[in-house]
């Protein structure tokens, strides 16, 4: 394992950058902190994952939910039914809709 690590570039070492992006909040908000040391500024984040919205509260969120619900087509097949169909049985003439319903 060590030998492999040493032949890789620093960037490729350890984990893929794509996966790092998925756990970036841990690197920024977890990890060992030493109180007597300074923490450099982390303003100007290029990474946006950590910029968590409170997605289920506030008037904006309520309006967004109301509007999303208003656009839903409840007469179509439910996602569960869509999921239970084998791939070949999906309605080929409605590929976009089938994908949406599968979620």
């Amino acid at each position, binding site marked *: *394992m*060590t030998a492999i*690590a*040493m032949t890789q*570039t*620093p*960037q490729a*070492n*350890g*984990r893929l*950058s794509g996966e*790092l992006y*998925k*756990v*970036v*909040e*841990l*690197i*920024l*908000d*977890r*990890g*060992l*902190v*030493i109180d007597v*040391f*300074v*923490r*450099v*500024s*982390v*303003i*100007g*984040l290029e*990474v*946006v*994952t*950590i*910029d*968590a919205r409170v*997605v*289920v*509260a506030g*008037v904006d*969120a*309520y*309006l967004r*939910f*109301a509007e*999303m*619900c*208003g656009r*839903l087509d*409840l007469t179509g097949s*439910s996602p*569960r039914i869509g999921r239970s169909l084998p791939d070949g049985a999906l309605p080929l003439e409605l590929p976009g809709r089938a994908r*949406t*319903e*599968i*979620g």
Partner: protein
Amino acid sequence: MSSYVYCVTRASHPLPLEGAVGVGERAPALRLVREKDLVAVVSDAPENLRAKRRDLLKHDAVIGRVYAAGTVLPMRFGMVAPDDEAVQTELRSGARRYGELLCRIDGHVELNVKGVHAEEALLRDLLLQNDELRTRNHALRAADGGRHQDKVAFGEHVAAAVAERRARDADQVIARLQPHAARIRQGPPVDGCFVNVSFLVASGARADFDAALSPLRRELPGYASVEVYGPLPPYSFVGNEADV
């Protein structure tokens, strides 16, 4: 020159750091600060460090090198000491704490679990299962969207139902995976995730943890998906709050 600190580990660690460089535009060389049984990996601290992708990758890559070859205490991104002497002083005064933390995470990995709801499918499910919400949605639609306050009131009800599903599914994820973990810690809230939680899992329990994922995914509603990231250096289990 102040010192940027990457991680702390035992002096006996092989520290395979050849070719690795530090954060910042100048890619500073890494060096070791030793104090008795402990060693810290540091570099010159760049001026004007920001949390850029490039530097996050470098920070994590240095820790990844050390992690691949043994137990490591990863620092949070951006910790800077006045100089190497201050790092040494900290290793001396915190020797006991760091020794205990290293023992606690020996032979363990962090696995981070994130769960996401497909929002449209979730809302559809809520409306199909809740007569009142469905009726109100229909009424608003018939009124061409309805009045602002009616929309807000309806949306608030939907939001409460969504929050309930989020909490329920998060509880489910934790309940199914916790038995295979030595420790557990909630991650910071992440946009779009109904759960973000890290587990400290012993190497010997890894197979059981992985095996619990398939039944969990089957039990969760169709609009919920769960991904596991890791094994990671134990970022979530080296703080004072790691017991929470």
